[in-house]
């Protein structure tokens, strides 16, 4: 019996920190640990990428760097873990990682049945198609009977089946284990079309031998709002991340940038700005982070506009337009509640 209880404890440890994690808020645990563990991608430049010098970069990576800056005061205090499509949720559920920032599409079933909390969404896009120009296809409705390359185990695979079924059309799925394989099959004409979020399609088209031979169809068959995700049950951790996301948007609204944040903190007389940067008030410490947390975040990755443009947008090699990800006042969908 003693042996069995020892074994049970071992198994409990193996199967995750379930009990321990639930007792305390993850925010406190991370502060004690002095390190944030972030599950992300390591192979898509601009999104999540590990380069030959061991440096991590990209949109999903930068979110975690910002979180490291907010909670621990240093974007370098983040350990990145490359996760595959199939093991990304088990890794989060088991407690192997604290945040999963891996272009995960937020859906109701994922939010309500998996025991997750989504932050943001911080990247709004949809599911589209890229087709070979010589097929003559200009609209998604012309894809009846086509072979479609799709990434296995993603929401795109599900939406694809749902959309064709809803429209009474048929297709031949060609599933790939990773996106390199998927695009290589598409370029080899194993399939007529490939389905993914248009920014990623644009990334691959830009790298094709003849970018002009491929058309990205305008119609989106599903919306795909991507969000970093954490385990349920850490309300303080969740609030910090959620308001960090809002804070980056607010910084853009207030015109605070990576370059001028120190200057603004010193010279501004605007009470909104002073409260926002933690020069006045105790918003930060009430949440369990330093009062100047947003200064650290903006210094690490910039405001939302900079964050987007440096990784995916006009300052990157990808040149994906802001589109829906522009601020609400510029006609986009990025909003943040007031900082009072």
């Amino acid at each position, binding site marked *: 019996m003693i042996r069995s209880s020892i074994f049970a404890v071992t198994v409990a440890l193996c199967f995750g920190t*379930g009990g321990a994690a639930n007792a305390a808020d993850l925010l406190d645990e991370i502060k004690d640990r002095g390190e944030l563990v972030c599950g992300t991608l390591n192979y898509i430049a601009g999104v999540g990428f590990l380069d030959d010098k061991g440096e991590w970069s990209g949109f999903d990576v930068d979110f975690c760097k910002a979180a490291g800056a907010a909670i621990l005061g240093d974007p370098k205090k983040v350990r990145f873990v490359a996760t595959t499509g*199939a093991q990304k949720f088990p890794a989060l*559920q088991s407690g192997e990682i604290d945040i999963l920032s891996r272009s995960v599409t937020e859906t109701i079933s994922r939010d309500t*049945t998996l*025991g997750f909390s989504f932050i943001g969404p911080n990247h709004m896009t949809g599911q589209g198609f890229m087709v070979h120009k010589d097929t003559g296809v200009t609209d998604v409705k012309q894809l009846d009977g086509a072979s479609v390359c799709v990434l296995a185990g993603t929401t795109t695979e599900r939406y694809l*089946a*749902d959309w064709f079924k809803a429209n009474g059309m048929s297709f031949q799925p060609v*599933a790939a284990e990773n996106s390199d394989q998927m695009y290589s099959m598409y370029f080899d004409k*194993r399939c007529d079309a490939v389905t993914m979020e248009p920014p990623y399609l644009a990334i691959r088209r830009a790298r094709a031998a003849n970018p002009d031979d491929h058309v990205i169809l305008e119609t989106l068959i599903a919306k795909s709002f991507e969000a970093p995700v954490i*385990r349920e049950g850490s309300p303080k951790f969740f609030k910090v991340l959620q308001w960090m996301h809002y804070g980056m948007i607010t910084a853009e609204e207030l015109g605070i940038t990576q370059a001028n944040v120190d200057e603004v903190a010193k010279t501004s007389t605007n009470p909104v700005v002073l409260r926002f940067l933690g020069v006045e008030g105790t918003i930060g410490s009430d949440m369990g982070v330093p009062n100047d947390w947003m200064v650290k975040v903006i210094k690490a990755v910039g405001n939302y506009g900079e964050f987007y443009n440096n990784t995916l947008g006009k300052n990157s090699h990808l040149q994906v337009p802001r589109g829906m990800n522009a601020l609400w006042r510029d006609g986009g969908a990025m909003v943040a509640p007031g900082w009072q």
Partner: protein
Amino acid sequence: MRSGPAFQDVPGRVRLARFVTRREFQSQALFIVIAVLLVWGAIQVAADNLAESSGKSGFAFLWQKASFELGESLIPYSAGDTYFKAFVVGVLNTLKVAALGIVLSTFVGLIIALGQLSKSVVIARLCRGYVEVVRNVPLLLQLLFWHTFLLRGLPTVRQALSPVDGVYLTNRGLYLLSPVAEPSFWIVMLALAGGIALAVGLWFWHRKTNAAFRLWPWGLTIAVLPALLAAYVAGAPITWEIPRLTGFNFTGGMTISPEFTAMLLGLSIYTGAFNAEIIRAGILGVSKGQVEAGLSLGLHPGQVMRKIVLPQALRIIIPPISNSYLNLTKESSLGVAIGYPEVVRVANITLAETSQSLECVSIIMLIYLILSLITSLILNVMNAQTSREER
């Protein structure tokens, strides 16, 4: 057990033996109890943790609707069917590639083994080279190679290679004519069954009476004639459906996908190399005297191989080759890497949809366990039969 001086003291010996067995029994029982408790504890803890982390566990999800397509299937399947059915499709696809792979890899193995034993140095060296190269390259790489080779090497759908009308070779698969049963199909089948029954009757009669006529031409005629007559009267039993290029793809007819072909090629060529060594060992294990005796009886070398060497070699071959077949079946799970919709691919996509990872992984484990047990059962029976001939 040592008997020693207590040799005649039978009751004492029995008592000792009983004591020992009881002690052994007790320790064994204790061991089983502990093992059961450990497993039970592990399951409980895992279930508790799962309940805490996701709130969902159990296999009820199998009856929910799966919203994904699988591409190729032996039974009709489409998005909206249950996860259970999707798993059945996966298992059938695994079985399809494993069964064909076992047959093909045995042929490859036999040919390469005979080649290695060939008197021609060139053939022997070539076959030796094949074994060395193929065995030492990881199977996953070979699968990726064949898949890429088929996609890059073959023409696109619009430039399909068509050696014969109705047969199209493209990088999306080989499209073939497929037989379609007509109403008269069952009539002709019935006639054929009757014909075969008659032929079997003829065979028995021929054996009994030793009638002076050649069995084969007559038997064959009697077997086939009723079916031919029925087909003539009732019309052709099957028609051929021809694949046609409509829109993006060929429709109609039969499709053999490049993923399946790559799997079959990879598994057969890889396992074939191992089988070749097993078969070679089996053949060399038959003593040389047997061959010489056969030759001195005036048998042709081919006959010696077929009638004397191979049946005896089979006894040596079957146990190790059953391992090789089991490996092939299990290695078919690598199909997930090239998108062949076998059972692991179904489990992965179900896992992504439902996030019930422990359940999905245990389903795959259970399926492979059952498949392996069935394979080894069949081969054990075969082994028992061939061994019996040893007397």
